[in-house]
């Protein structure tokens, strides 16, 4: 199939993007790397009147470091992170996860902002950004607001982003040397969407102890205080102390009723712990 006829704009700054979004008379869709939107356009699952291409907005490619955080513009690509063209403040977590996203061709174009906004529960960033405690900055006509990922993503393919807002950047906390992380995904073959993701980040100095179970039917399960799931790992202990039954029960509580699904997700989680760095 082919897309419907649409207009195309490539503004140079966020203000112009917001002005275009403000047009109530037509359906506007923002496009960054177009790695998810492209196929959806082709299948006419989305039929916009106007596509606003964000790749010409310099601000969205900007990278800033503050004392505690790294701020990545929404249009930073997976490959930028994989190749460490942007600084790594996560003890290798983000570059490692980036290198496993889909295929290189997708990573060259796909962006962190696009991935988080699309909010596919099987996507790597949705889980890993939540695990690391990242926040997103959203800008609209009345100014900017900042949300932690777990508040931004409200469901499968569903985010707290108004029609006249744009995600401008992702704020990633700098991890200390005492931080540990793990990420494991199960997928049928390299490049395919995961069918189970386990992720965790602990950093005693930043008070981080987070677990994410991803590739779920609904929004990934994000646990911001995961001491009960991580067991001794939270305190820097050995990996094998994690209790699968506790994790299994947690997932059942979250509404994952199929025992095979739970088993696959427990496995992904355990392996994330076993491979903790």
């Amino acid at each position, binding site marked *: 199939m082919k897309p419907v006829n649409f207009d195309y704009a490539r503004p140079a700054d966020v203000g112009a993007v917001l002005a275009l979004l403000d047009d109530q008379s037509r359906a506007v869709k923002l496009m960054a790397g177009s790695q998810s939107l492209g196929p959806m356009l082709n299948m006419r699952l989305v039929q916009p009147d106007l596509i606003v291409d964000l790749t010409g907005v310099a601000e969205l490619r900007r990278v800033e470091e503050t004392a505690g955080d790294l701020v990545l513009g929404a249009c930073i690509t997976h490959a930028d992170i994989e190749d460490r063209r942007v600084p790594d403040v996560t003890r290798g977590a983000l570059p490692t996860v980036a290198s496993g996203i889909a295929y290189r061709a997708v990573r060259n174009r796909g962006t962190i902002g696009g991935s988080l906004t699309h909010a596919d529960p099987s996507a790597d960033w949705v889980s890993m950004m939540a695990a690391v405690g990242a926040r997103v900055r959203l800008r609209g006509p009345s100014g900017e607001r900042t949300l932690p990922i777990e508040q931004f993503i409200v469901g499968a393919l569903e985010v707290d982003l108004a029609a006249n807002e744009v995600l401008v950047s992702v704020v990633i906390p700098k991890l200390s040397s005492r931080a540990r992380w793990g990420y494991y995904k199960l997928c*049928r*073959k*390299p490049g395919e969407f995961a*069918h189970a993701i386990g992720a965790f980040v602990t950093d005693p100095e930043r008070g981080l102890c987070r677990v994410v179970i991803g590739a779920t039917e609904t929004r990934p399960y994000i646990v911001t205080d995961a001491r009960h799931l991580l067991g001794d790992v939270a305190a820097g202990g050995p990996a094998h102390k994690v209790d699968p039954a506790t994790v299994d029960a947690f997932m059942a509580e979250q509404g994952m009723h199929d*025992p095979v699904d739970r088993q*696959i997700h427990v496995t992904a989680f355990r392996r994330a712990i076993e491979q903790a760095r």
Partner: protein
Amino acid sequence: MKGEAKSQGIGASVLRREDDRLLRGRGQFVGDIKLAGLKDVAFVRSPLAHAKVHAVHVPEAERGRRIFAAADLDGVKPIVAITALAGFKVSEQPVLAVDKVRQVGELLAMCVADTRAQAEDLAAMVELDLEELPAVHDMVQALEPGAPLLHEHWGDNVFLESAMDVNIEAAFDAPVKITRTIRTARQSMAPMEGRGTVAVWDHRMEQLVLYTGSQMPHIVRNGIAECLGLQQRQVRVISPDVGGGFGYKGILLPEDVCLGWLAMRCGHPVRWLEDRREALTASANCREHYYNITAYADRDGRLRGIDCTAIVDSGAYSSYPFSACLEAAQVVSILPGPYDFPSYRCKTWSAATNKCPILPYRGVARTGVCYTMELMIDAIAREVGMEPYEVRLKNLVQPEQMPFDNITRKHFDSGDYPEALRRAMAAIDLPAIRARQQRGEPDGRLIGVGHSIYCEQAAHGTSVYAGWGIPMVPGHEQATLRVTPDGGLEIRVGVHSHGQGMETTLAQVANEILGIPVDRIKVVHGDTEYTPYSTGSWGSRCAVMAGGAVATASREIAKLVKGIGSHLLQAGSDDVNLVDGKVVTATGSVSIEEIAHTWYRRPQDLPAGIDPRGLETTIGFKPVRDSGTFSYAAHAVVVAVDPEAGDIELLNYVIVEDGGKLINPMVVDGQVYGGLAQGIGTALYEEMNYDSSGQPLASTLADYMLPGPTEVPAPAIDHMETLSPYTEFGVKGIGEGGAIAPPAAIGNAVNDALRPLGAELYQSPMTPRRVLEAIRAARQRASAQTVAEGV
């Protein structure tokens, strides 16, 4: 010179001549064809699996101009693929649906515009008034009493019942009796290039010219002429480069007929290029089988009998030309595979369901049959406590039995099946794997080894297909050979390459006999205007049939060349020989170039009585027996199964193949690699599911998973070359074999790996979920047993 000429003949791994253009992106596929004024077509398709069509509302301004519904297609006949088999029920597939739709994706209207996107805009303007009916979404459900009916006047959902019983009662007292239910998933054939058609009416030639990627252009011409009421002279079918066929380019689609009709009226060329969604969900699927099978055996592993019922999900319509029942009827005759046993009963049903038609995909029914039979052999081995290869060796047809007529009267031409198996077992090193299993793996994975063996009947001819009575029965295969005025050679054949490399291999056959260098030989195929009639490329028949025709015609050309050459050498025609492209006597020689120059350019040098056929001939070929060649292979594989995640990794893969004499061993290896990749897809990845309303659940390649380079190991391939006594040079057809054995070999390896857990898996693809479910079921059985014993 002699050595050089020899190196291009039979048995030489000549580089494929077509690869220069194909690998540089210079191939010409249907999608590359640009004609002035070309417009694109998109179809309005049924969103429902089963529904009454009350109305197709087309905006008045567009009706008959840019949008066409069934009522507009005056004089177009439906596609009907009959068989002569007793009890076969005929389906009529209207090219645009009339009263009813019977599958998602069935065509309801045709829209034409300057671009595909605009044609889709038109399609979105058409409003459908459909009344949904309950759908038949599963082949087992199709046969249940009270199931909804697809073709009401049939009274049931059965295209055909097939059955055979050979002394089954004699097996009933066997000490070992094992019954299993086995299923293979519905699949998409998924060639890289989808279907596509460009149609234009040529006023000068008074001809509908149809460019369509097809394995069988002459059969498409038959079908188009019949549906559109044209004379054969008014239809020309051109199949340019074809990006993979596998059976999918072996059927006539309603889209082809629609475009032909439109091109005859609209005054400009029209094009339809199938997209992946249409390919996956609408046009055709394959492979979906259900078996309930019982094996009877003695305690020493000797097979006493097989008793089986099977259903094949044939979809909504009988597709042209192979029909809806090729596959299920074939199950009856080929289930015994390469085994010799005394009792057999099998009954099958071709079930009509609200899904797109099934068609014969590479390996046809053999992949499902091999999976079923070989899983049963391993189940017997486990039951009697033998190694599976020992059970196979006890039951395989033996070399001294050749030629051999098996229990279903299949005629095996030659071969040493036990030797293929022994070589495969040696190459996979069974003792080393058993020792490794004893040690266990540091990562907790379970190692399994499995193997399978099959026979592939190829190039079956008139005697086989006359009984089927489908719209296409192969007869003599013809080739036209013509020496050109410069001493080169043109070969014209009605079969067509969709990746097989026949531009190279058929030239090698001619080179073997005539000594003309391969780069001076042009193979013309894929055009009804230029080639002799043929049923085309299917059934692994081209090397045997077209190769045989080229060999036969080359010998005729050799006689003609020698006739002129002997005159030029002043010798008797019996006193000359043709050696390396020269006619020679004891004292002199004359080249084919000089002979051709004389015939075409200097006829004044020829005597009055020269053979007036010149240097051109058309001649037909049939093997000595046309019941088919039997190639075969043993596959062996080592897998690692992750019992926590359900993942399966292939660690080592071995293939011992016997394709008779190999024309080009490198091309044969290519066929085996490609088949293996598809077999791995069947075994582990590919699955076209439908929900209970008949909606296909995989409409993109994100949902329909194909193996990629990281999933296909490089196999070790060993060749045996047992000649067929019936064919030119002893060649056998091998095009499909690679895709037949992998699901069985991998399935047996997985069950071997799962054996310590007491789990068995009898359904393909063997996905992580199915592996984990099998393990869970085994644990539940074990704990239930423990409880029972405790009580």
